[in-house]
């Protein structure tokens, strides 16, 4: 009977390929959406769990996307006086503060590692942001020739890395965060300041704001559990000319944006799937009637109504299975493309789903889509199984 199913599908090749194609598109969209959604959800969850900053303070007038500042070091050459750290620390309701110093992106002029990585100066003594991502014991100090690498910074030697012509000892590699932190090189504040001080393009900044040794780029703030965050923000603004950003609002906005994105794309995927299934249903419904004489012939051979139903459902299942498998291959490509886009714009924190998760959704999709395909053919199959066997005697030639 399998041969009969296979031959029939091949005989109606164009019709079969059309349905396989539409199912494949639906499956590709659903697979990539599920994979990306899982990656972003995990990234968001990790960020919530480990990025303890309740408020991110940037220089007044900074127009960078807050999510870029929140989820890692943005390549922003904006600075403010380091004395503001003590002022913020003194605000009532502030539990902890830690400063960071951003250098420029290393992509343009770094021939040693040659990617989109950026260097961030941080203060290990006051830091609680980066510590949870470090696999080894948290360092309370970092020397000027030491570096902590983000999870996706490429390295060719185990212990050392050359950055802008200087060799650094790698003291730790952070876990994957799904954020720009994965592409960051974390050095001491002094070292970060030294690196930018030699950058001629920033000379105007130093002339205006003073030498890098007296500057910072951001202050990350953790507030007391019982503190009124709006009051804390208001008090911080009294300390000096700064722009406090409430992390929860940023995270919520990102989550909302992603939810809209997921609903939109997921909706398109679902509609594509629904269209495919309706197409499948319509095709098999029509075929059931067009092939009455053929079913009648099988019944004359001794086939039962159940056999006819199995042939119809079997054809639908084979088409759905083939479409699902092709769709998964297309979906993998779509997923890779989506990742490239996400990484290019860093709009959302992202953690790669495990192979186990990807395999399980692939298997799940195959089962669900094959099942739905078979289900779509169920009514036509039921009708086909009830066809009057005498049609073989009365109908004209059949295809």
């Amino acid at each position, binding site marked *: *009977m399998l*041969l*009969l199913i296979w*031959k*029939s599908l*091949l*005989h*109606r090749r164009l019709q079969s390929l059309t349905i396989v194609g539409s199912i494949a598109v639906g499956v590709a969209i659903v697979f990539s959406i599920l994979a990306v959604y899982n990656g972003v959800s995990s990234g968001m969850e990790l960020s919530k769990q480990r990025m303890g900053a309740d408020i991110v303070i940037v220089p007044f007038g900074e127009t960078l996307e807050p999510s870029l500042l929140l989820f890692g070091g943005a390549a922003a050459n904006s600075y403010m006086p380091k004395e503001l750290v003590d002022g913020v620390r003194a605000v009532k309701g502030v539990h902890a503060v830690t400063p960071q110093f951003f250098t420029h992106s290393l992509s343009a002029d770094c021939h040693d590692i040659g990617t989109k990585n950026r260097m961030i100066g941080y203060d290990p003594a006051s830091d609680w942001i980066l510590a949870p991502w470090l696999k080894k014991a948290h360092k309370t100090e970092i020397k000027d020739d030491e570096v902590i690498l983000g999870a996706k910074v490429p390295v060719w030697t185990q212990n050392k890395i050359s950055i802008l012509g200087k060799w650094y000892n790698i003291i730790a590699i952070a876990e994957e965060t799904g954020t720009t932190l994965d592409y960051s090189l974390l050095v001491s504040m002094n070292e970060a300041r030294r690196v930018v001080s030699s950058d001629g393009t920033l000379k105007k900044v130093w002339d205006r704001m003073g030498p890098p040794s007296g500057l910072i780029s951001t202050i990350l703030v953790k507030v007391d559990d019982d503190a009124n965050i709006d009051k804390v923000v208001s008090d911080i603004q009294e300390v000096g000319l700064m722009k406090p950003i409430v992390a929860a609002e940023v995270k919520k906005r990102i989550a909302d944006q992603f939810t809209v994105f997921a609903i939109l794309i997921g909706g398109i995927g679902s509609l594509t799937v629904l269209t495919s299934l309706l197409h499948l249903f319509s095709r098999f419904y029509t075929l059931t009637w067009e092939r009455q*004489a*053929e079913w*009648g*012939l*099988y*019944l*004359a*051979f*001794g*086939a*039962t*109504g*159940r*056999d006819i139903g199995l042939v119809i459902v079997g054809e639908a299942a084979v088409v759905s299975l083939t479409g699902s498998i092709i769709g998964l291959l297309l979906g993998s490509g779509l997923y890779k493309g989506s990742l490239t886009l996400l990484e290019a714009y860093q709009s959302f924190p992202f953690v790669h789903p495990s192979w186990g998760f990807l395999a399980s959704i692939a298997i799940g999709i195959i089962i669900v889509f094959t099942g739905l395909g078979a289900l779509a053919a169920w009514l036509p199959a039921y009708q086909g199984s009830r066809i*009057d*066997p*005498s049609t*073989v*005697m*009365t109908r*004209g*030639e*059949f*295809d």
Partner: protein
Amino acid sequence: MNTLLELRNIEKKYGDDVILSKVSFTLAKGTAIAIIGHSGGGKTTLLSIMGLLQRATSGNVLVDAIDIGGLDSYQLAKLRGQYLGFVFQRARLINSLTALENVMAPAWFIRRGDKMEQQAKDLLERFGLSHRLDHKPQELSLGQLRRISLARALLLKPPILLADEPTNDLDPALAKEVAECLLTARTEGAGVVIVTHDPNLANQADQTFRLEDGTLKPIVYNNAAS
């Protein structure tokens, strides 16, 4: 028991139209019965009832002494697979299958496909089609299609062979060949029922009936049942 198929007082109506009325006859092993009659006279309907493809309005159909009146569609299908072979008015081949696969198709539904390939090839060789095994129906001539259809009907060696206008549209030589093949099945113990307009074919049957005004009348008796 010699009787393979028995019809008792079969009546068939479509609404108020009476197609068959009080039709009775028996088909014994190793005999051939021909049924003639004008077009639209109910011959195909009668053959459908004999082939368990449709039910009579009243009366009894017995296959190998089994009254089919109480059987459901599943049991009827099993009985068809076990007892009946059909040669249809047109070849009725499946275009997606090759000649060999078409001959083997009935065996697939009784789960004997894997054992019947050689028999199918032998039959096609017997009908001079061993060089056309892998050809699709659309690549074959009308005569070849008819022979494949006949091979398909004979594959499972059914005890009852029902043929609906088997020589219609065929040239005399091919018609003779098809007739010989059908009637040869008698020698293997099959009962053959042929619905035909062809007087030559009807004359070769052991008994001939004319279906007229819904009733079956014996018109010729050619020779005794073997």
